[in-house]
């Protein structure tokens, strides 16, 4: 999927926020390593799902790609161009092809603008609105594309339900024919019956327009459904990447396994027969993360090395990579010796 035809390439991305104390004389006392060495690619017309619990750095990763937060280290390539150091101004022409949709369909739309103008705004900003007729026709076309009626152009956002507002945000995002859309929890605030409508819309648009998505979410079932490949994040790092069905059928990282076990299935019979092995504790603070593998204090399989050294993300099978000492080929012998492989 990824490779030569990748739309987005992220290499060793780090975003660290300084932490200060002192009121009069501010001293930097540490840093929040919100994103700490993340690498991935998104292929053309591909959806890469990014999952993990709150605070693991998903949104910050998205903001760094949009160049809306400074990056500490690493490289971001969009359509082959290095955008790691572009200013907001130099980013602007690229933003035609790199768009986003956020979780909050209430906060992200200007309540004083009519829906038609909201959808047309990107066209105006980028100077591609054309004459009045062309502009109107394009707005009508976009409304239909996202499943709204053309006459809705004359209404205001507050007249719409949450699902419809999310359709409006999507129409705005696709107005300029982007190649990549970053979606940050785009269906998390919606009720399930409406969520399904919006998920279907994302998939239809991908097929019709050849879009690529970086799809950020915490709901594992939603991510399984929409993604081609999935990356699991924990405390600023990617711990596992795999094609979607493989990740769910054969998860390798103890954190991925724990996440999947924690998520309840909508099936009472299956739930009754299922072992509910719990991950203990809560995600620790990013200000002072655990040494070595960040997950080791909560990991049921932790070994001494896990507290000492952070495991690298390494290939375990085609398209399946994991960052875990249990799956480090060079350690296979030690693990066998300690009986943990059984």
């Amino acid at each position, binding site marked *: 999927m990824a490779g030569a035809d990748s739309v987005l390439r992220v290499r060793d991305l780090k975003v660290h926020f300084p932490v200060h104390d002192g009121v009069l004389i501010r001293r930097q006392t540490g840093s929040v390593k919100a994103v700490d060495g993340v690498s991935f690619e998104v292929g053309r017309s591909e959806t890469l799902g990014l999952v993990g619990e709150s605070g693991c750095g998903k949104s910050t990763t998205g903001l760094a790609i949009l160049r809306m937060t400074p990056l500490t280290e690493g490289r971001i390539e969009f359509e082959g161009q290095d955008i790691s150091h572009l200013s907001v101004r130099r980013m602007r022409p690229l933003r035609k092809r790199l768009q986003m949709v956020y979780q909050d369909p209430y906060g992200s739309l200007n309540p004083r603008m009519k829906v038609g103008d909201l959808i047309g705004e990107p066209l105006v900003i980028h100077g591609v609105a054309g004459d009045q007729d062309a502009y109107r026709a394009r707005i009508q076309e976009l409304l239909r594309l996202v499943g709204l009626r053309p006459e809705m152009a004359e209404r205001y956002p507050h007249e719409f339900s949450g699902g419809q507002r999310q359709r409006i945000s999507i129409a705005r995002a696709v107005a300029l024919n982007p190649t990549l859309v970053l979606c940050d929890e785009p269906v998390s605030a919606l009720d399930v*019956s409406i969520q399904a409508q919006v998920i279907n819309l994302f998939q239809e648009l991908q097929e019709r327009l050849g879009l690529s998505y970086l799809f950020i979410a915490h709901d594992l079932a939603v991510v399984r*459904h929409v993604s081609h490949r999935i990356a699991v994040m924990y405390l600023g790092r990617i711990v596992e990447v795999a094609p979607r069905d493989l990740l*769910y059928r054969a998860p390798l990282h103890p954190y991925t396994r724990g996440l999947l076990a924690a998520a309840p*299935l909508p099936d009472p019979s299956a739930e009754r027969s299922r072992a509910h092995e*719990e991950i203990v504790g809560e995600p620790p603070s990013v200000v002072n993360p655990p040494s070595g593998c960040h997950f080791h204090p909560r990991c049921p399989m932790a070994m001494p090395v896990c507290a000492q050294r952070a495991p690298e993300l390494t290939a375990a099978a085609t398209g399946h990579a994991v960052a875990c000492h249990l799956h480090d080929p060079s350690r296979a012998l030690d693990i066998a010796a300690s009986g943990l492989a059984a």
Partner: protein
Amino acid sequence: MQRPVLEVRNLAVEFGAGAGRVRAVDDVSFEVNPGETLAIVGESGSGKSVTALSLLRLVPTPPGRFCSGEILFEGEDLLKASDAAIRCIRGNRIAMIFQEPMSSLNPALTVGLQIAEPLQLHGRLPWARAFDKARELLTRVRIPDAARRVNTHPHQFSGGMRQRAMIAMALACKPNLIIADEPTTALDVTVQAQILSLLKDLTKETNAALILITHDLGVVARYADRVCVMYAGRVVESGSAQDIYANPRHPYTLGLMASIPRLDQDAVDRLTPIEGQPPDLAALPKGCAFEPRCRYAMDRCRDERPTLEHEGGRHYRACFANVAC
């Protein structure tokens, strides 16, 4: 047959007046037995929280109004009880846990003090004993280092630990009924699993009844014995969790099941959503509120509102259509 702890009959609660009048809870009936977990499931605005708040008469009146119904708790109608009697039941024989624990915790007081207070008040324990009890309870809800934590303030707790403290507080007076309104919606999935299994274990130990309000069909499947499905203020289907999932009989329940992406199955090409928009409580149709979105709708559904009818066993539904599944 054991006697239910709580029986709700034909409860109706309204807000507002004139064109803005909404019936948030409409003709709702259900019961819970000791040791049983009843889930109330439904999408936002379906009346779950108003139902929960009604049970303890915590709905603000005005703007709210109880229009009809009975809430029989251990045989006594709470809608007719005096304010003093209700205050005595709240937090004592019926406890409530909310989604946002900080809304019920006092940031200025230590956690221990807040747990000890009802024990001293309702349980008539001397302060020192109540305080020991608070420490025991924090240990029971598996808060690590409880002896020290009992003297700390809520803001020093993580989200999951606050919810554990809320559970400790809820359990303090050994209530016969616990109402938990979306207790884990704000928490991550690993912490959610810990909190809900804790709640389930502790209620099992004390044989308390648990009403678990949620919008998550996975949570219902894992933790509930019985389920009420709500839509636009009404219960549209109820039954054992096994029955509701294996044999849903209301078109809305069927629609919900088809809408959810599955974690336990290979991805399908497309989900099957429920078409249309959520209902507007201020402008409900004359007939069934789900009719505009229903695939099985008939003429009768537009004119007449179906009531909850017995389907066999403990299965009830409010629908005229013949639903094949």
